[in-house]
């Protein structure tokens, strides 16, 4: 299936079914790449579990889990080349880690140390956006600047189903299409915006079908199928790199856990529904397929798990260290050079400490 076909926006692209069987008529995925992706899925799942545990222990204030969405997280990060940019939301910690950012630096924001724990310019990963859809416009700007400078950078812009209701989603899609910007809009349709279900966000035939109104291709893909996601996102990235403009990709997936630890999902959805989606787990189908073709066995599985455990141990250790906050930082970064008023306020705060010490 080509992503330029109009029915791609409504039909769902699949490569591996829930049992890990190859879907009829699809090309067999490359086992080596899929195994590498599986390793990332195992890491992503482990990171989601570890972050959840750190919240329960009081080490993190909050964690919006992407459990059940790990295939989306891994595929969007691995579809990019080194010079490309990723624009994540607050639920995309696993994608940022899959892009190569130290998970300790990703999660330190949720520990309350600062608003962003990694250097976005160095990693080409924007700070995690908490307002909805606003970052999509920044993604278009980065992409447009790259095009003006003659660079072949591609920008992967993430959002959820709820964000597609925001005005900035519309403006970003429209700007990107008009300027033929090299952006891939990747919507993880996980069915809920906190408690509000998809049906209250949109009655469009699919979220991907919104692309038609902007004059760009839209594709709906099984969001729990790493093989399908890698194929579709890879094609969308290459299309953008060739100068063919943006693509809207909708992943059909599910937020298995509550919005955050502070949310009670039993108030707005049934356990039957959650169980049904848990049965479509993105890890088990890849593992079943890889075992079926002889690319994965217990030894490799154990090695991946041990790797992931080591990563989790480093995360526990890294986030267990409490760095005393520096009050000077309140004033240091507001402007390139602090204003006279901020210098005075910093001195006044220092004066309070001096009094306390005396």
């Amino acid at each position, binding site marked *: 299936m080509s992503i330029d076909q109009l029915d791609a926006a409504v039909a769902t692209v699949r490569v591996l079914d829930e049992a890990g069987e190859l879907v009829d008529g699809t090309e067999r995925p490359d086992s080596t790449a899929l195994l590498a992706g599986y390793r990332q899925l195992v890491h992503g799942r482990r990171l989601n579990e570890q972050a959840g545990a750190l919240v329960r222990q009081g080490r993190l204030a909050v964690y919006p889990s992407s459990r059940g969405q790990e295939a989306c997280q891994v595929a969007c990060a691995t579809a990019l080349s080194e010079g490309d940019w990723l624009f994540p939301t607050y639920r995309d910690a696993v994608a940022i880690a899959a892009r190569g950012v130290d998970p300790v630096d990703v999660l330190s924001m949720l520990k309350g140390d*600062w*608003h*962003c724990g990694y*250097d*976005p*310019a*160095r990693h080409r990963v*924007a*700070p995690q956006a908490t*307002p909805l859809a*606003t970052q*999509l*416009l*920044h*993604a*278009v*700007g*980065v*992409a*447009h*600047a*790259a095009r*003006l*400078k003659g660079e072949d*950078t591609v920008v992967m812009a993430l959002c959820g189903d709820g964000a597609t209701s925001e*005005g*900035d989603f519309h*403006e*970003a899609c*429209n*700007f990107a299409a*008009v300027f033929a910007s090299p952006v891939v809009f990747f919507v993880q349709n996980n069915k809920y915006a906190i408690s509000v279900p998809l049906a209250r966000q949109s009655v469009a035939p699919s979220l991907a079908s919104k692309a038609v109104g902007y004059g760009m291709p839209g594709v709906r893909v099984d969001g729990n199928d790493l093989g399908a996601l890698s194929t579709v996102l890879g094609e969308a990235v290459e299309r953008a790199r060739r100068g063919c403009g943006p693509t809207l990709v909708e992943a059909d997936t599910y937020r298995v856990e509550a919005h955050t630890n502070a949310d009670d999902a039993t108030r707005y959805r049934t356990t039957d529904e959650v169980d049904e989606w848990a049965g479509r787990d993105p890890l088990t189908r890849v593992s079943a397929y890889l075992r079926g073709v002889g690319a994965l066995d217990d030894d490799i599985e154990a090695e991946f798990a041990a790797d992931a455990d080591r990563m989790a141990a480093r995360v526990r250790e890294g986030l267990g260290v409490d760095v005393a906050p520096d009050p000077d*930082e309140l004033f*240091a*970064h*507001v*402007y*390139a050079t602090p*204003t*006279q*008023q901020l210098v005075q306020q910093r001195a006044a705060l220092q004066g309070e400490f001096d009094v306390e010490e005396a």
Partner: protein
Amino acid sequence: MTAKMTMAQAINSALRDAMTADDSVVVFGEDVGPLGGVFRVTEGLTSDFGEDRCFDTPLAESGIVGMAAGMAMNGMRPVVEMQFDAFAYPAFEQVVSHVAKFGNRTRGTLRLPMVIRIPYAGGIGGVEHHCDSSEAYYAHTAGLTVVAPANNTDAYALLRAAIESPDPVVYLEPKRHYFSNDEVDLAAADSTIGRAAVARKGRDATLIAYGPSVPVALAAAEEAATEGRDLGVVDLRSIVPFDDDTVCEQVKHTGRAVVVAEAPGFASVASEVAARVTEHCFHYLEAPVRRVTGFDIPYPAPKLEHFHLPDTARILDAVDELQWEEQL
């Protein structure tokens, strides 16, 4: 080298000179391309610099500002135009939540050197949504630099400085002066952001104004002089950063101050100036600081705006109330 030009032409010159000096400066917005902007401020930029350097966008202000933020992240220096003050409000979330905060959010690793040009304030008989004085919204938002030129030389110099600034700048253009002619000395233009100007020295009282209110304050001082009262005028130029030193030096010299601004006075920049002057100069003051501002109303319809806008009579009435009798 001086030249006679309008404020619109002075701003156009600043854009041209900045675009010539630095390839990363790009100009975009609504109607800024072949048309040259509804006020002709960007006239000729597309034909002279090409469509990649000055271009029209879809009609969406959040999109314009959000895209500019992204371009600034990727090494450009965008200068965007909001067509009118009240049409900038759809971009408010981008301005407040991202443009203002990005440098702080990233501990200074990713600053956004961009300029948001906003034709602002009234006095042109414009219909609703075309005459707002929106400076308080921006001045209240930490991380933004906010400037408002009152004359053509400063219009040029402040825009050059705004484009060179590492921080995002809201550049407020007093639209009623777009077509005021003035001698401009581009070479001598002092391009410091954060420095107020003493527009007129005076012994008896200090008028503090910015943007379109500066010429009104100067006219009031002229009128007062004929009545034997010597009023000074401070032109803030830069609302953020605020130049406490220049303002306070003048007020300490005269002991009396009136703040003049078009915006409604409640929770306004004028209120902030009055509070600062009171805090810093209390022992030098002969009278409470007065504010002469617009009323606390939505901007009026064209036939009513002259009731709303501070004029020389209202300024001089306020000056009269600065407890002169106690001096006798």
